[in-house]
C-alpha cells in the first residue's frame, strides 16, 4: 500500500496521498509540514460524509476533483476505503489518473489488501450521524433523508 502511495506522490504536482479505511485507519507515508494524521482523518471523514449523502440520493460517487485557488483535492471513493490526493493547482490530471488506476488495480489484486478491506464492517452511512456534525449540517442531512 505504502509503495503505491509513493508512486502516486511521485507524480509531478502531488503534495501527498493517503488512504482512509472506513473503520478509521489512515495509511500514509510521510505528512508534509503542517499536516498530520488527525488532519488527514478530518479531510477523509468529510469526503466520506459527502459520498454518503450522494448514496442517499441514489447517485453513487466514484471520484471528486475539487479545485481551490491554492490547491486541488482529488479523491477516489471505493466501497470501504477512500484514496485522497492533495495536489498543487496545476497537477497533471491525466498522468495522475493513469498512476492512480494502476495503483488501485494493484492494491485490490493483493490478497492482504483484500483481507484488510474485507474485515471492515463500518458503512459510509454510519458517518452521517448527529454527533459527527454541526446542527446546520445535520438539518441538511435530515432534509435529504
Amino acid at each position, binding site marked *: 500500500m505504502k509503495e503505491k502511495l509513493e508512486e502516486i506522490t511521485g507524480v509531478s504536482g502531488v503534495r501527498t496521498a493517503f488512504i482512509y479505511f472506513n473503520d478509521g485507519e489512515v495509511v500514509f507515508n510521510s505528512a508534509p509540514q503542517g499536516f498530520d494524521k488527525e488532519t488527514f482523518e478530518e479531510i477523509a471523514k468529510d469526503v466520506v460524509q459527502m459520498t454518503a449523502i450522494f448514496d442517499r440520493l441514489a447517485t453513487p460517487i466514484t471520484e471528486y476533483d475539487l479545485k*481551490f485557488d491554492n*490547491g486541488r483535492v482529488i479523491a477516489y471513493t471505493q466501497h470501504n476505503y477512500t484514496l485522497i490526493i492533495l495536489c498543487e493547482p496545476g497537477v497533471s490530471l491525466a498522468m495522475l489518473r493513469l498512476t492512480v488506476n494502476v495503483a488501485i488495480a494493484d492494491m485490490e489484486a493483493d490478497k492482504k489488501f483484500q483481507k484488510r478491506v474485507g474485515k471492515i464492517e463500518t458503512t459510509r452511512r454510519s458517518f452521517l450521524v448527529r454527533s459527527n456534525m454541526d446542527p446546520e449540517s445535520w438539518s441538511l442531512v435530515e432534509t*435529504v433523508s
Partner: protein
Amino acid sequence: MALVGNLKDLKLTNIVQLNCMEKNQALFTVEHQKKVGKIYFAEGNIVHAEYAGHEGDEAVYKILQIKEGPFKVENNVPPPKRTINTPWSNVLMEGLRLIDEAKEAKGDALSKFSKELKNINGVNGVLIGNSFGEILMEESIANGKRTSAAMAFVLRKIEKIGRASKSGTFKIGFIAGKNDKKIVSKWSEDVVKLIVDPKMSSDTVEQALERIKQQNP
C-alpha cells in the same frame, strides 16, 4: 433578565413592534456570520442601529435581511446616540420594501443565469440553491428539494476540506458518478450544481461556467 432566542424562531419585525409599542428602552443584539447587529429602542421608537459598518436606517435595513442568528434583548440600555428619527413603522415598511425589491431583482438575475447555464453544451440539468438548502432555481433536476439540501451540505464539506488541506478558497468541483458528472460551484453565496454529460470535457464546461458567472456577477 434578557430575552434570548433565534431569528429563525421569532421575527425581528415582531421584536421591533413589541418594544416600540411598549415604549421600552432596550437594546436588541443579533449575531450573523461573525458580525453583530444592534438596534436601540427608546420612547416608543427605534433610535439608533449599527451593523457591518452601517448606522441608522441603513443598518436596520441590513439587519432585517438576517433570517437566522442568535439574538438577545436587554432592557434599560440607553442608546449611545440618536441616528434614526423616522417612525418605527416607516423604517420597517421601507426595509421590507427594499427586501422585496432585491428579491425581485435577484429572481430576474437567477432566471437569466440559469437559462444561460442550461444552454451550455452538455449541461443536462441546473440547480441553484442557497446555503440553507433552499431551491432558488432548478431545471431538469430530479428530487429538487433533497438535491438542494445535499448540495448545500456538500459545499459546507468542500469548504471545510479546503481549509484543512490548506488549499484556499473553493473554485469548482467535478464529482463523477457511475452514470453522470456533476459540477459544483459557488455564485456569490449560492450553490450552483450542473448535471453534465459524462462525455463532456470538464475544462469546456468550466470555462463556459466561469464566463457566464463573470457576465452575471
